[in-house]
């Protein structure tokens, strides 16, 4: 390695830019979370100070937990996300296997058809989706959201998973066939365990947009019983716009679970993006 490229000045400049941008990226989150733990007076007097013994207050969180049904919203989000994720992974992996493994008439065409949804957003069909959900009585149910998110997640999942399934060795599958395993067993017993890392990547990519979506909960399931946490936080903040403690606390409650999950899975996510996404 040439030392010229990595002079100290160079390296200091690099760190300076990265630190500056890291501060820009984290500052808003930081300000929101620290102020959520302060009294109203302290929020306005010294917005950038950390909460101390004098200014510490949980009054915002108390209001949020009293007024909004955040536990229920959280549960709705969790159910919708987990069930959609499961369906996307199961159906997506099955379809990806069929496309990657078998030669049949229309294979390429089917692949293209399923890939359409990567580029064309499902939101454009909202008018007809709502009419369909009204007609089938699914409005204001979690089922409606689960169906929509499953359809939304499938195209990308199939695309990524079929790339990975092409790499599974043919010898292994043929050995299984000689031993008399059915095609279903080959898929579930041999192939699925081998593409587990790809499944994890797809899971993260599918999960984030579902958890964060505002559009479909707003349109398909706005009732109190089916609100997701994203919609719940939006409505709550809209109502309590002048109660700064409550707004900051609600934002923090919405940020923290995602942040914790992200910090646990960030390595997986980043490895997924850097390995498969740009091929």
């Amino acid at each position, binding site marked *: 390695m040439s030392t010229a490229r990595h002079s100290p000045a160079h390296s200091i400049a690099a760190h300076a*830019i990265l630190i500056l941008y890291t501060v820009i990226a984290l500052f808003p989150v930081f300000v929101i979370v620290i102020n959520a733990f302060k009294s109203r007076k302290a929020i306005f007097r010294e917005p950038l100070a950390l909460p101390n013994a004098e200014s510490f207050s949980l009054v915002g969180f108390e209001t949020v937990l009293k007024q909004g049904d955040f536990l229920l919203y959280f549960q709705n989000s969790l159910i919708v996300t987990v069930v959609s994720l499961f369906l996307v992974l199961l159906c997506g992996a*099955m379809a990806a296997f069929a496309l990657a493994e078998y030669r049949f008439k229309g294979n390429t065409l*089917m692949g293209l058809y399923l890939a359409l949804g990567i580029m064309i957003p499902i939101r454009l069909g*909202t008018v007809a989706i709502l009419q369909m959900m009204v007609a089938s009585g699914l409005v204001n149910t979690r089922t409606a959201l689960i169906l929509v998110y499953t359809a939304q997640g499938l195209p990308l999942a199939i695309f990524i998973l079929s790339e990975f399934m092409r790499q599974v060795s043919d010898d292994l599958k043929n050995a299984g066939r000689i031993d008399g395993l059915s095609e279903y067993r080959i898929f579930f017993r041999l192939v699925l365990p081998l593409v587990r890392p790809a499944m994890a990547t797809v899971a993260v990519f599918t999960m984030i947009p579902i958890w964060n979506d505002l559009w479909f909960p707003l349109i398909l399931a706005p009732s109190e019983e089916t609100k997701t946490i994203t919609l719940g936080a939006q409505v709550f903040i809209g109502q309590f716009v002048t109660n700064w403690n409550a707004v900051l606390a609600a934002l923090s409650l919405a940020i923290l679970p995602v942040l914790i999950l992200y910090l646990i899975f960030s390595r997986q996510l980043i490895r997924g993006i850097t390995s498969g996404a740009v091929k």
Partner: protein
Amino acid sequence: MAVEQTTRPPIRWHIAVFLAPAVLIYTAIMILPLFSTLQLSLFSDVGNRQVFVGFDNFRTLFGDPRWAEQFWNALKNNVWFFIVHMLVQNPIGILLAAILSSPLLRMRAVYRTAIFIPTILSFVIAGFAWKLILSPLWGVAPNLLDLVGLKSLFQPWLGKEAYALTTLALISVWQFVGIPMMLIYAALLSIPDELLEAAECDGITGMAQFWKIKLPLILPAIGIISILTFVGNFNAFDLIYSTQGALAGPDFSTDILGTLMYRTFFGFQLQLGDPNLGAAIATAMFVIILIGVSIYLFGIQRRLRRYQF
């Protein structure tokens, strides 16, 4: 004939079984509604019956003074929203990725993880967090500007017609810069070392190396990012709705196609919702996205030279 039939390979039902669930859900929830939305845009509600009206809804949308002004305004705003993303988000993303990919950098994982954090948050959180920070009531932004002696520059940006849209676009850039950063970072990592070493032997280092060797090699990744940004921007809604409301204030200055479609479809205040006109806006968005994707697939992607290592 009979012989031929018996030698025909048996129908491989398992292929159908593997494909069926995904194809059924995808077709029923995504493709069919998309096409029936396109179809709805050609109908109109006359006395509670759907009547075929041809392109009348589009004539209303593009020409009727009540609608045309809103539609063209939303489209113009949407184009500006996209331009800000392309001019700010992608260069910052490329810069960060180029720095991150330099081989001797320490603490790389920390920076990567931290800079990606805004991307995992929802629009609602990002929008409100910035709304609070930029609020003149709270004074975080003016205080910060005061620290560098620029307090006089402070304006309630989200409340001013002239600045609101650009401010929102920059908030969206702040949130999503992680995606171009990661994709370009991945593309830079995939450049083989031999190539860079050969360049160094020829005396091409530093900035020259970036412009002459690396940039041409990451052009396909930049292409993918541009089209992802295009589709995302022309389909945006959440950020504007959660910070400025369905009316996309002040005075519609932040109205984009997504919010216009929502208002038209559901109605607001005194105006009744009109599903057919909403479908017409969705169709217009569909056509715009289709044109963008086609330009990318047939115009740009094919011309980009791809290098096989």
